C-alpha cells in the first residue's frame, strides 16, 4: 500500500543533489500529494475569484467551494462548522487566542504550559502574562523530556489555572500527551483548555468532542496542505465571546464613523481576503487523508518508528530523547558531544533530510541541557528503505566525525 501512496507525492520521486531523497522533516512541513497540487492548479486555472461578495458565477462557485472546506474540516475534527476559524496557521491561531483570553486574566492568575511547548505556544502567553500580571506555571517533565502525568495533574490541582495550553504532540521529541486526562483534571476549576494540535492533526486525527478541549489549533502545511493557512477550533460560546482580534472587511456587520458592529464567529475572526486557494488546496488534503484508513496509517507509522528506534539503538553513543512509547514518529537524538549541525549537514550530503537545532523549543533544550538535537520525523510516505539509507549514512557520518 505504502509504495502506492508514495507515488502520490511527486517530490519524493525527485533527485536532490543528484541523489534520491529521504525526507525526514515532516514535522517541519509535510510533502504534498498530487491531488493537493492539482486542486491549487485547477483553482487558478478555472475558478479563481474572491469570495463572499460576488454577484458573479466564478465568485459564487469559489465561495461555495471555500465554505465547503469548512464543513470538511469540521467533520474531520468532529465539531460544528461555525466553530472553526480559518487563520494563517497555528502561530496565528495561538496569537488570536492569547490576545482574546488576555481579558480573562488577572494579577497572579495562572497559565499552565509545559516545558515541551513550541515557541508559538509560549511567547504569546508570556505577552498575555506580562500585560496582566498572570503567572506561567510549568508541568513537570523528566530529564529525558517526558511529561510526568501524575505530577502534572497535581500541579493543575494546586494551581487551579485559568488557562492550560499544551501540545497534543511535541514537535521536538514527538511525545504524545494524554491531554484528555489533563483537560478532565482541570474541569473543576473552570480552566480554559487549549490544545496545540500542530503535530497531532495529521498523525492522530483527533476527535475534539472526545478530547473535550475548549480550543484547538493547527497548520495545514503540516497536514499535506498548502502553506499560509491553518485553523482554530473553539467551543462556540467561548469562541464567539472572544473579543475581535484583527478587523477589516468581511468580519463586520456595519461600519460607520459613528460606530462599527461585528458579525458572529467564525466570520468575526476572518477579516480581509482569506487564503482562498490555500483553503481549497487544504480541502483536497483532507479528502486525501480521509480516503486513507486512519488506523492502518497510524499502525504503519508506529511500526516504522519502532524500526527506526531499533536500528538507532544499535549504534553506540546515540542518545534518544523524549517518550519513545507514545510518539507520533519523531526521533530526536544526539551523538556523544558532536554538534547536531555537523551530523545533519553530513547526513544531507547523502540525501538524508533531517532537521537539527532547537526546533523552536529553546526552553526544552535548556531543560535537557543540550543546544539541540538531530530530529528525524516520519510520515506515512516514508518507508523502511528510507530508514536503512539513513542508518547507513549515519554510520559513515559518525566515522567521518571520529576520524
Amino acid at each position, binding site marked *: 500500500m505504502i509504495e502506492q501512496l508514495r507515488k502520490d507525492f511527486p517530490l519524493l520521486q525527485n533527485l536532490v543533489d543528484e541523489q534520491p531523497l529521504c525526507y525526514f522533516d515532516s514535522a517541519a512541513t509535510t510533502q504534498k500529494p498530487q491531488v493537493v497540487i492539482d486542486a491549487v492548479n485547477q483553482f487558478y486555472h478555472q475558478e479563481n475569484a474572491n469570495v*463572499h*461578495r460576488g454577484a458573479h*458565477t466564478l*465568485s*459564487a*462557485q469559489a*465561495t461555495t467551494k471555500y465554505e465547503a472546506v469548512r464543513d470538511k474540516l469540521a467533520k474531520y475534527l468532529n465539531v460544528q462548522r461555525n466553530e472553526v476559524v480559518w487563520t494563517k496557521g497555528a502561530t496565528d491561531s495561538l496569537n488570536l487566542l492569547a490576545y482574546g483570553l488576555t481579558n480573562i486574566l488577572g494579577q497572579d492568575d495562572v497559565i499552565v504550559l509545559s516545558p515541551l511547548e513550541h515557541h508559538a505556544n509560549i511567547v504569546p502567553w508570556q505577552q498575555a502574562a506580562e500585560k496582566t500580571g498572570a503567572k506561567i506555571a510549568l508541568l513537570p517533565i523528566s530529564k529525558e523530556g517526558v511529561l510526568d502525568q501524575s505530577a502534572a495533574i497535581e500541579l493543575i490541582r494546586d494551581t487551579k489555572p485559568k488557562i492550560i495550553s499544551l501540545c497534543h504532540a511535541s514537535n521536538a521529541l514527538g511525545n504524545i500527551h494524554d491531554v484528555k486526562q489533563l483537560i478532565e483534571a482541570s474541569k473543576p476549576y473552570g480552566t480554559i483548555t487549549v490544545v496545540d494540535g500542530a503535530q497531532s492533526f495529521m498523525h492522530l486525527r483527533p476527535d475534539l468532542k472526545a478530547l473535550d478541549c475548549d480550543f484547538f489549533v493547527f497548520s495545514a502545511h503540516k497536514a499535506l496542505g498548502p502553506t499560509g493557512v491553518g485553523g482554530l477550533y473553539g467551543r462556540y460560546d467561548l469562541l464567539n465571546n472572544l473579543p475581535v482580534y484583527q478587523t477589516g472587511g468581511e468580519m463586520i456587520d456595519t461600519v460607520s464613523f459613528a460606530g462599527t458592529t461585528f458579525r458572529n464567529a467564525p466570520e468575526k475572526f476572518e477579516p480581509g481576503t482569506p487564503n482562498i486557494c490555500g483553503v481549497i488546496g487544504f480541502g483536497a488534503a483532507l479528502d486525501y487523508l480521509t480516503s486513507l484508513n486512519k488506523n492502518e496509517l497510524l499502525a504503519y507509522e508506529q511500526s516504522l518508528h519502532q524500526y527506526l528506534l531499533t536500528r538507532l539503538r544499535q549504534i553506540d553513543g546515540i542518545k534518544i530523547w523524549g517518550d519513545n512509547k507514545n510518539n507520533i514518529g519523531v526521533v530526536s537524538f544526539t551523538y556523544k558531544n558532536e554538534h547536531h549541525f555537523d551530523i545533519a549537514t553530513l547526513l544531507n550530503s547523502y540525501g538524508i533530510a533531517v532537521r537539527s537545532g532547537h526546533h523552536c523549543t529553546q526552553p526544552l533544550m535548556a531543560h535537557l541541557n543540550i543546544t539541540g538535537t538531530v530530529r528525524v520525523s516520519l510520515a506515512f510516505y516514508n518507508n523502511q528503505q528510507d530508514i536503512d539509507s539513513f542508518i547507513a549514512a549515519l554510520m559513515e557520518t559518525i566515522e567521518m566525525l571520529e576520524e
Partner: protein
Amino acid sequence: MDINQIQSKLNSLKGWQAKYREIMLLGKQLPALPEPLKTPDAQVKGCESNVWLHLDLDESQQRLVIIADSDTRIVKGLLAIILACYNNALPQDAQSIDAYQLFEEMGLIKHLSPSRGNGVKAIVEQIKRQVEVLQ
C-alpha cells in the same frame, strides 16, 4: 401559481435571461410590504440586499402566513418562490420543506451567489427558526 407550477414553468424556460425574467415577474406579483413593517427586527441577516420577513399563523386554520419583501427585484422573486413553498403549510409540516433543496434542483443555486450573497439559505433558515418558536 403554486410551487409546482412555478417549478415546471421555470424548468421549461431555456436560458438564464428567460428564467430571471420569470423570477422578476413573480416578484412583481408579490405585494409590497408596507413601509412600517420594514423594521430592523424583521430584517433577515446574512443577505447582501435588504430582506424583510414576517411570519404568523392564520387564526382560523393555524396555517403559516408569511409576508416578505426585498429591495431587489430578483431576491423579491426568490422570496415569492420561497413563500409559495411555505405559505399555507401547517407549522409541523414546514420543518420538512426544504426550499433550499428545491432551488438546487432548479439549478438556481449554482448560478446565484451563495451564503452571504442572495441569502436564500439565510431566508429559509430564518423561516425555520421562526416556525420553531411558534410551535
